[in-house]
């Protein structure tokens, strides 16, 4: 019993260290966590609409390839060119 009491601060220190390490690890891993939501088999129509709106408003989308390419050359950035059957904001 006396021995247990003497070890108590060590146990507490150990728990504290583990706790702090866990928090730090969680924070440092936050940006690396998987983005692909494998546990969600289906997005609802409402969520799809919200996501489409977010995608359209979040990025400055060019509609003309030559103009976009000229802008890419001017800024020295690659062009991300999306081709779809349908419209970005109007469904397929």
């Amino acid at each position, binding site marked *: 019993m006396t021995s247990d009491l003497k070890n108590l601060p060590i146990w507490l220190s150990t728990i504290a260290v583990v706790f702090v390490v866990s928090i730090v690890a969680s924070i440092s891993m936050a940006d690396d966590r998987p983005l692909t939501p494998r546990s969600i088999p289906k997005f609802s129509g409402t969520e799809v609409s919200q996501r489409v709106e977010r995608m359209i408003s979040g990025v400055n989308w060019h509609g003309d390839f030559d103009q*976009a390419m000229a802008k890419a050359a001017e800024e020295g950035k690659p062009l991300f060119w999306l081709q779809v*059957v349908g419209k970005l904001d109007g469904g397929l």
Partner: protein
Amino acid sequence: MTLSEPKIIELLKANFVCGWRNIQGVETYAGKSHDHAVASSALHTTNGAGGRNVQLLFVAPSGNVLHCLPGYWDPDGFVHEVEFILELAKLDASDLSILEKRDQFQLAHLNHAAHHTEQVVKDSSLQGFDKMKEEKTDGSDFRRKTDGSVMRTVDQVMHERMARRPLLNMSRFDIENVVNYGTRFYDKYGDGCCDLEKGKPTMPKQKKGKMDKGSGGWKEKG
């Protein structure tokens, strides 16, 4: 749904000029699909599914094509490819000769494919109806060289196809061949098919009898 992920939006804004176009009825390689309103639900699928319906092209400021991801690409796989593409952009902008750049471009694509994780490879399996089509295609690059079975995945085949097109200018890039695999028809309901080549898909077996006849959608076979 990949492009609506906040992290991916930030990635695109920070590193790319972005643009898009509708290829429906414009390009001969454009695929077919049922109509879908914006507010219809969305399912997860495999990387490369619907390669004729969606193409994600990455073009260097010089006009040379760095990569083409056909169809759906999940968020983690997409981020992994974008990191690789940004390295290719540095290669294209370097002072190396064009021959050296092309050599390195080829090696980079093949090495990158060889280092894809098991998860990426697993997530890039052909859809059932695309696999059926490839099994009927002589010389398909989806066939394994060991036993000839159509077991290879879209992530691997796409890097190989890009390696055969080293830093081609967009004006010379034969996208119709790059996205040429599987069927012309793709729909989010997956393996339900169909008279695909005639554009008359039927309802998936597990969905039969569950859809409202008045809602349009799947056509009856025959």
